[in-house]
């Protein structure tokens, strides 16, 4: 059987010729997924490095003279933007989405392989533009990742009068183009290309999650695109969409009539769904991993799907909970607090169903399972503190303090990253045909899990005290005691250790490529289709001559009457032994 044959069952396939076609300008979803993963991890490392620079200033103020207030704010801004957009969004959807959708649904590739390739290269371009802003005069923008005008486009904010802010906005616009091309592909593939028997309600939950996250992205990113373009106009053409009358530097500027709050509405109309664009794929990974490694069917599949749909729907009407004290009409707070707390119900259902999956299970404490369980604890913690901040009046004393920093890092930084790592350990054998080193995996896990908890947990309490976030230095404030500086030192040391520990993962990744134990075709004993391909790792076209046919749901673990403790999706009833 020629795996590179140009047609399968009369369907014309993209046929790579030569090295460039196969590895660089590839249209194969698996190669594109890897490209996304590599670029995202590279820029993610940059984002982590920036966070360590920030931590150095907070823990050891003045130790590095090069970190002045301006560069500190640039680090804050670029760290946030890189991690949220260019690392997590790209890695979950471009990486996991690309790799898993065709393999888990039993199709040969994405619906539009060429557009899929373009999507990656547009993403790459957006990263290049982003990185370029580090090298322009006055550097990247230091406006905070939310880029609130007026300050984001004025002098007095690093990069506000230079090219930094324009490059940031341009990079976002290009990223959104990349996302749209990828996203339309994911949606179309899920709706049109599923294998025979793969009904929507037989799809693995991670595919549901990626599908819904893509939906959110396609509907939410346009708001950011519009905001970004209008902000570029305000900056370059001196329009005044977001700019009221402003008195600055001793003179009245040539702006007037615009509304800074309008930008915040546009930003968060995107920004809140964005939280779920990151969270849903993480939920999906956890749903897969917990079922496979606990050797137990996922509990309440139907409820899980409906909870996801509910979360995705409500995610669009909670955005202004980021703006309770932003000067919007205060009566909106009643509405947004209510919707925000309602969204806690389907989210809680997801957590219940994960933990109930563990009940009467047969739990294997593999590295992916460790990440799964750590995710549950961390996400629980971060999710519950969200109930403080979503609850309008409770948010008032805590808003813009370190409580917020602790909360969102727990819930949308540490949690997704734990899920991400679990996913990388889990699917590495599928991608490379080799296992990652278990011992290194465990060392990396323990440092990351305990370290991040020690970093973010205490931040909630200096938030109670009222320490504002985004402060380059706390020195001149009498209400902030010396103990906060000591704590900052402790957190910085933890952050350095956790930061260094990430190189263990990187090392494990690279060394295992050549030296890892050879993985069997289905090393974890999973039911989903990506482990049932003829070859390991799956070749071009994924399935050889015959597309798989699906006979059952993806969580057939512990089926009574079967000898094995799992039955893959493509095994018909009569073949169960």
């Amino acid at each position: 059987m020629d795996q590179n044959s140009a047609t399968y069952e009369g369907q014309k396939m993209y046929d790579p010729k030569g090295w460039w076609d196969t590895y660089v300008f590839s249209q194969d979803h698996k190669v594109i997924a890897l490209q996304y993963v590599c670029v995202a991890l590279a820029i993610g490392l940059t984002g982590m490095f920036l966070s360590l620079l920030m931590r150095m200033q907070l823990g050891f103020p003045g130790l590095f003279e090069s970190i002045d207030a301006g560069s500190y704010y640039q680090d804050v801004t670029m760290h946030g933007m890189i991690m949220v957009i260019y690392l997590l969004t790209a890695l979950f959807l471009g990486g996991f989405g690309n790799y898993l959708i065709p393999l888990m649904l039993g199709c040969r590739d994405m619906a539009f392989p060429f557009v899929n390739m373009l999507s990656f290269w547009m993403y790459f371009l957006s990263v290049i533009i982003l990185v370029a802003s580090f090298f322009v005069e006055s550097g990247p923008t230091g406006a905070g990742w939310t880029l609130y005008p007026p300050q984001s486009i004025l002098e007095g904010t690093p990069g506000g009068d230079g090219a930094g802010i324009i490059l940031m906005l341009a990079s976002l616009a290009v990223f959104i183009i990349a996302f749209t091309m990828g996203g339309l592909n994911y949606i179309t593939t899920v709706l049109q290309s599923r294998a025979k028997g793969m009904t929507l309600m037989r799809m693995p939950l991670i595919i549901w999650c990626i599908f819904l996250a893509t939906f959110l992205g396609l509907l939410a990113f346009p708001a950011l695109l519009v905001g970004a373009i209008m902000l570029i106009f305000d900056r370059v053409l001196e329009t005044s969409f977001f700019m009221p009358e402003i008195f600055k530097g001793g003179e009245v500027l040539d702006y007037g009539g615009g509304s800074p709050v309008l930008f915040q509405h546009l930003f968060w109309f995107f920004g809140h769904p964005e939280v779920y664009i990151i969270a849903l794929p993480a939920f999906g990974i956890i749903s897969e991993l917990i079922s496979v490694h606990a050797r137990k069917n996922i509990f309440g599949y139907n409820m899980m799907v409906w909870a996801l749909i509910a979360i995705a729907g409500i995610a669009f009407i909670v955005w202004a909970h980021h703006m309770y004290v932003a000067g919007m009409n205060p009566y909106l707070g009643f509405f947004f607090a209510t919707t925000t707390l309602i969204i806690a119900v389907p989210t809680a259902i997801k957590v219940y169903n994960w933990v109930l999956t563990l009940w009467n299970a047969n739990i294997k404490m593999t590295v992916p399972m460790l990440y799964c369980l750590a995710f549950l604890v961390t996400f629980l913690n971060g999710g519950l503190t969200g109930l403080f901040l979503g609850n309008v009046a409770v948010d008032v004393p805590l808003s813009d303090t370190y409580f917020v920093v602790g909360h969102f890092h727990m819930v949308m930084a540490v949690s997704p990253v734990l899920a991400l790592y679990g996913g990388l350990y889990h699917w590495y054998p599928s991608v490379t045909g080799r296992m990652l080193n278990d011992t290194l995996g465990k060392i990396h896990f323990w440092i990351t899990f305990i370290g991040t908890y020690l970093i973010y947990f205490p931040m909630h309490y200096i938030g109670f005290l009222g320490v504002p976030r985004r402060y380059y230095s706390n020195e001149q404030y009498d209400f902030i005691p010396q103990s906060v500086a000591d704590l900052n030192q402790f957190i910085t040391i933890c952050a350095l250790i956790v930061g260094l520990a990430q190189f263990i993962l990187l090392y494990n990744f690279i060394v295992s490529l050549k030296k890892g134990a050879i993985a069997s075709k289905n090393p974890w004993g999973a039911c989903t289709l990506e482990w049932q391909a003829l070859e390991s790792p799956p070749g071009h076209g994924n399935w050889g001559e015959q597309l798989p046919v699906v006979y059952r749901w993806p969580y057939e673990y512990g089926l009574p009457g079967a000898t094995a403790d799992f039955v893959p999706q493509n095994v018909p009833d009569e073949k169960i032994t």
Partner: protein
Amino acid sequence: MAFVIVTAIIVIGTVLWNFVSPWWFSPLASNWGFLDTTILISLVITGIAFVLISAFILYCVVKFPYREGHKSEYEPENAALELKLTIITTIGVIALLAPGLYAWKLYVELPTDALEVEGVGQQWVWSYRFPGEDGVYGNTSGRLFSSKNTFGLDPDDPYGQDDILIRGGEVHLPINNKVVFQLRSKDVLHDFYVPQFRAKMDLVPGQQSNLWFEPTVLGTYEVACAEYCGTGHYAMRGTVVVDTQEDFNKWLAEQPTFAETMNEGANGEQIVQTLGCVACHSIDGSDGIGPTWRDTYGTNRALASGETVVIDDDYIKTSIVNPMSQIAEGYAPVMPAYATLSDEELTAITDYIKTLSE
């Protein structure tokens, strides 16, 4: 097993920490104690959920470890259990939301019998305005701002003449008296936040936002800007002094009205306070975003360009009007240009800086 022990320590530690944490709410000094109560309610309810769910996870990990040849129980759905859990969660959410919304109602309904103060933010200083004897604020406009008319008041509006202007970042308030703050900003977003008062609200240029509270403890409190407002954000510190009514009245009577400030000659100290220069350039010798002014007049200054210049009247004036032309070495090029100051004002500033080196 290691996972169970470590996670149990984390969960128990998380709960116990609430009783031993060295960091807790700063001492309350306003009427907003109810906000603290809502935080405590949230802590209890979410704490119970955190402990129960974590304990369940750990129990499962201990109770159901992998056994070769063993099969887990096959139970895809349990509608009754799911319904029960949904109802319990909904009750928990309502228990959180109800006090939250009630507190919010108190927070957004402005009292009508309160003292009115206007809070004005600019990079990176606070200033305030009282409506004066007539109890009515004069009209303002963003177009009328100047280094002299720092509140943008309409000079022809009779209601504005007696408005009392507080420049320099320190405002006094009478104890046990409701205060409504009308907030606006001259340039970018800021946020008026006094940790001990709990209340917080953004200042947005081009519009007005409101905030109210009642100071309940005498003392001096710090205002910390809580909305990122550019390089000097962390240095945007102000002061609120809570006085007895008597002391407050005395203090207020000493403050200038708008009419008086418009007749003042150029006063360097006043100008650097109102323009916010001192947020970055200290007058006590400490280092800031920009170089200090203390004991620097007449000394040499190394520039980022590699040159060295003497700090004299010309250097200071050029640095105000066109700061990028001679950035001091070791400092970020972030100062805005103050190109519209009059010669009289520039001289006043220079003279003031000179006095700091005597």
